[in-house]
């Protein structure tokens, strides 16, 4: 089946977020973005105020809600909105996957001070993380499974433990990017979303040796306690409810970043990323915009720059032509954080490339007579994408080496 592209944004039909195309070739993500103009956002803000009042702990005996935060732009905006606009007293909860950029960590640590809020910072043992990084690259072509699991699991555990029923998430990524639902659905966070979409169907027990012949890392159940989602009974007893702020606020990442930069001093990345032009996204995890995302290109033939371009086309910041240029420039780049990752988990680049190739999607990739991988381009025609080697070159990756111990 040939890859098709949305006629409005740049998403391919091979997108990791499943897209539907309408009779005009417009993808479901663009259709949801268009829906934003028709929504009465004042009414939504009113609904949110009512909801906040319902959850406000008037006697001060507990926190009013939990905000899962990475310290990124969305975290800052969520905290600003919850604390300053709604007047709630949130508990911030962070899963630290040990991949912070320095600037990202600085942003995270400053949140407590800037907003005057309490903050739980949780880090699994680095040994466990290294094993998960290695295993999950081999198992599903993504070293960052642990991060997706931790982000969607640990804050919910805290909510159950502390009996804080309301969790305020930011945007629903699949709704925003891919138009998985409609904005009228008022989607809430579910265990199904965590397992199927954030974690590709793999749960903590899928990481144990008996499920992974030939890839055993010796992971033990007690290393993965943070990765166990609460049971339905626990969720029901604590009346846990995870709402998405994106259903109540007309989400515009660029405008929101301007707000938190100007008003609160959020720092965007001083260094450009290798794989995208945005400097405000994914500062909490150098591989999320880096090799995790490069693997998306290896699998499905597109990358983070496409994601960002789609968002920026939909919000009117870019034209489709400008967007396609950025896709051409960034989507295929093998990024420097690979060198950090290889050292971190002790793997050679050849082995990494060999594993990555096993995940090339046959719907996207074919080999030419020279043995190079070839795929179709959004700007027309096919190109070969030879895989460069970064090891042994004089590439500077010093900005990724400093990993300060979080305080």
């Amino acid at each position, binding site marked *: *089946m040939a890859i098709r592209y949305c006629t409005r944004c740049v998403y391919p*039909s*091979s997108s*990791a977020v*499943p*897209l*539907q195309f*309408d009779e005009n070739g417009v993808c*479901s993500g663009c259709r949801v973005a268009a829906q934003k103009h028709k929504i009465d956002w004042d009414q939504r803000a009113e609904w949110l105020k009512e909801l906040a009042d319902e959850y406000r702990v008037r006697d001060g005996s507990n926190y009013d809600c939990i905000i899962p935060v990475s310290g990124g732009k969305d975290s800052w905006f969520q905290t600003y909105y919850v604390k300053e606009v709604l007047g709630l007293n949130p508990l911030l909860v962070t899963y630290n996957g040990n991949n912070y950029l320095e600037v990202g960590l600085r942003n995270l640590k400053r949140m407590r001070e800037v907003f005057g809020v309490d903050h739980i910072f949780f880090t699994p043992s680095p040994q466990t993380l290294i094993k998960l990084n290695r295993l999950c690259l081999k198992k*599903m*072509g*993504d070293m960052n499974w642990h991060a997706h699991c931790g982000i969607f699991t640990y804050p919910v555990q805290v909510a159950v433990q502390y009996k804080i029923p309301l969790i305020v998430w930011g945007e629903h990524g699949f709704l925003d990017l*891919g*138009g*998985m*639902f*409609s904005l*009228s*659905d*008022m*989607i*809430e*966070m*579910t*265990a*199904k979303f965590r*397992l*199927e*979409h954030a974690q*590709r*169907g*793999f749960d903590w027990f*899928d990481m144990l040796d008996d499920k992974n012949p030939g890839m055993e890392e010796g992971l033990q159940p007690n290393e993965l306690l943070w990765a166990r989602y609460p049971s*339905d009974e626990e*969720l*029901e007893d604590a009346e*846990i*409810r*995870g709402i998405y702020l994106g259903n109540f606020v007309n989400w515009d990442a660029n405008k929101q970043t301007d707000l938190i930069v100007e008003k609160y001093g959020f720092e965007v990345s001083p260094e450009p990323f290798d794989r995208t032009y945005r400097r405000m996204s994914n500062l909490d995890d150098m591989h999320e915009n880096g090799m995790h995302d490069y693997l998306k290109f290896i*699998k*499905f033939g597109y990358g983070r720059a496409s994601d960002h371009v789609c968002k920026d086309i939909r919000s009117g910041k870019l034209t489709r032509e400008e967007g396609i240029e950025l896709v051409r420039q960034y989507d295929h780049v093998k990024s420097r954080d690979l060198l950090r990752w290889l050292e971190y988990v002790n793997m050679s680049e050849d082995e990494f490339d060999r594993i990555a190739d096993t*995940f090339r*999607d046959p*719907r996207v990739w074919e080999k030419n007579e020279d043995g190079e991988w070839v795929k179709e381009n959004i700007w027309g025609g096919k190109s070969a994408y030879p895989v460069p080697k970064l090891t042994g070159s004089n590439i500077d990756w010093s900005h990724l080496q400093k990993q300060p111990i979080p305080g």
Partner: protein
Amino acid sequence: MLKKRLIPCLFLKNGFLVRSEKFEYHQLLGNAIHQVERFNAWEVDELIYIDITSDDVYDIRRDDLKVKSEDNILTILEAVSKTCFMPLTFGGRIRSIQDIHDRVSRGADKVTVNTQAILDPGFITEASKIFGSQAIIVSIDVKSTKQEEYEVFYNHGKTATGLHPVEWAREAEKRGAGEIFLNSIDRDGSAEGYDIELVRQVSDAVRIPVIACGGVGQFKHFSQGIVDGNADAVAAGNIFHFTELSTKRARKELIKSGVDVRN
């Protein structure tokens, strides 16, 4: 008096579960399996699973997931059956007795028949003789015409029949259908609630159970289908995907409205 039933409905298109609007626009919600696991855990009364694929393509477009992409509906059904411990109705694209055999032998307790029943009403009789009436649900999709008359449509809601749903439901009952699954194309995905008039007309016209579907946007709509529409069972597609523990919350709401459902 039998207890009233609450039934989630999963619509499968090209291998993806979908959110549906007016039978025309479908947003992709995920693969065939994970949502079934959730409904299982929430102990729903039964599950209706309908394949609305119109070509022969089944592909979830990626191979890096725990659930593998299957390229035909029968292997998908096998995987669903392994996961599903509640009574399972499996419908869509059934054209022959062999199609029903293929589904029943892979774990379906009942099937829905729609287009084939319209094309050949004798098929209902033949199928219910072989599999028993209880296993044959006639699925009826209804749209309002320009004259504001209800009319039965088939072929994914695209082709008009000239039949009134009341007339067709009676005929289906006479020919051996065990239940009627009644869906409103106009209300599909609208979140406005059931077309109560339609549900009541059909429910009052037949003795066999009528399952109402189409339009639920809030949990309180379910009790309206039973209390005002006289339906024996209330079903919905989209809404159960939107929140955690959705069927449990819907059942609580039904109990609160005084509807006799299983606790």
